[in-house]
């Protein structure tokens, strides 16, 4: 009897281990595939040419693969989206956690979750039909610009930031709130000076996840950003990000060109690694300071 139980335990142990193993294996396979296909072409043309070259002409007779405009494009667009979306997201989370009346909350919460599940191409379409003409008529340029991309990505990262920040704020022990109120602080002062700092690790992780989504967004951006492989010189200039670069050309790229696009993926991967590492460092510091 005991042996049967022990066998069952071992079998289940094995099943769980295999599942975990498969996730790690997929990650390792992706990393190995990208680096083995991307690094050779980077070495052939020179790492500095790839990272800092400003000319992207992969189909010319003497091709040049300068990714700097795309790297800058990704950075600018993500920064802009974060600067617009994160404050709105955190303030919305505060509203939902501390100010929202229950009946409104029952509508708002599913609404935000719905926003998170809308496919990104639908967001892109929405921006193409609504945001692009508004920017073209009231602000300038031809509507397909960095500004459009920043606005759209800000809207797209809102659900991520709101949901996680709200959980983080709600997870702060009520005793903190009661203690602060008991000491004479107002509702607003308590939230911004006591609750929000206490929830900072959760709020920070929501910001990092939002940044991750913004930097990886492809289909929505390709419809509205203009896709010119140039260094953007103004908010209204067109822009191409690392992700849209891949999606625009992958279907017909061949040889060195295809490997250069995989190299674009490698650089993107490195970016995500850096962002996640910063997040882990911050989290560790939070945990050790507890």
């Amino acid at each position, binding site marked *: 009897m005991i042996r049967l139980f022990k066998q069952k335990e071992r079998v289940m142990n094995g099943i769980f281990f295999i599942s975990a193993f498969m996730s790690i294996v997929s990650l390792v396979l992706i990393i190995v595939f990208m680096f083995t296909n991307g690094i050779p072409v980077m070495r052939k043309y020179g790492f500095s040419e790839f990272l800092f070259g400003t000319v992207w*002409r*992969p*189909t*010319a*007779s*003497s091709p040049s693969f300068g990714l700097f405009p795309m790297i800058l494009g990704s950075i600018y667009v993500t920064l802009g989206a974060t600067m617009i979306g994160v404050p709105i997201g955190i303030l919305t989370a505060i509203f939902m956690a501390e*100010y*929202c*009346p*229950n*009946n*409104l909350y029952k509508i708002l919460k599913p609404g935000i979750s719905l926003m998170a599940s809308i496919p990104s191409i639908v967001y892109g379409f929405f921006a193409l039909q609504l945001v*692009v*003409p508004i920017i*073209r*008529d*009231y602000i300038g340029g*031809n*509507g*397909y610009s960095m500004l459009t991309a920043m606005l759209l990505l800000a809207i797209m990262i809102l659900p991520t930031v709101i949901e996680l920040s709200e959980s983080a704020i709600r997870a702060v022990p009520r005793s903190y709130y009661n203690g602060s109120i008991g000491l004479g602080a107002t509702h607003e002062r308590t939230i911004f000076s006591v609750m929000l700092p206490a929830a900072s690790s959760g709020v920070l992780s929501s910001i990092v996840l939002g940044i991750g989504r913004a930097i990886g967004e492809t289909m929505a951006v*390709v419809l509205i950003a*203009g*896709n*010119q*492989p*140039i260094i953007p010189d103004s908010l209204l*200039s*067109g822009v191409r990000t690392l992700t849209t670069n891949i999606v*625009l*050309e992958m*279907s*017909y*790229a*061949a040889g060195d060109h295809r490997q250069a696009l995989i190299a674009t993926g490698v650089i993107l991967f490195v970016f995500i690694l850096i962002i996640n590492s910063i997040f882990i460092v911050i989290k560790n510091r939070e945990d050790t300071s507890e």
Partner: protein
Amino acid sequence: MTLKSSVTWLALFSGSLLLTACGNEEADSSASAFEDTSDIHVITREDGSGTRGAFVEITGVVDENEDDNTTPTATVQNSTSGVMQAVAGDIHSLGYISLGSLDESVAGLAVDGIEPTPETVASGEYQVARNFNITYGENLNEAAQDFYSFMFSEEAQNIVEEQGYVSVDVQTPEYKSEEVSGEINIVGSTSVEPLMQAFAEAYKEHNPNVTIDITAPGSGAGITAVIDGSADIGMASRELDEEEATQVAGVDAIAVDGIALIVHHDNPLEEITLEQIQSIYLGDTTTWDEVQ
């Protein structure tokens, strides 16, 4: 905060939004009037587009190495319909598309005094024109071979004329259906796709047991798909270069098509010269008043 006060805030906010939307109706129509001093919003296709390849070759938008030298500030759209939608929505834009796809949503320009029509393309007067090519790899299946000969039949070439393109010589005068069955996978140009859809529909009347799958990610993608075997037939709206030609089993032209320069309907410009097109797409001419 109570439910009542939050609903009041919501109502006030949405109300003010609605008012600004309604109030700006007049500003809206004047904001979309054509201005001479505005920049030309140049629209081009993606790198792998056959239309783009043919266009830059014919108009001379190349550098000293014969490489595509379209100005990097041109907005990139990755399909024929993308260019049409972009031009239809922006009064200061200029783009180029397959002549057969031209419809009422945009206006075609006359080039060097010649209107873009199938007749002027056939006679050679309208110079901005190219072949629709189809390529195939080794080992075409029976259905694909039969479809191939169908495309050069009189019936198919009549479809070419009906759709607004110029036909090529008929090679199979009387197409007889042999009731083949199978799957045909066709990949390639967004310009050729409407014609190919019309062919597929007519072909399926003769051979209802054949399934034809058509996708249009662009000419370059179509040629690559034939080379690596993932497509039976590739559609290209440009000529194949030497490297590509050695890697496919064969290539033939099924139609001739013009490339129309298109602008928004409210744009007063009606004709343009080849030099002006070249200068605009090289980035030397930047505002609309330089094109009058």
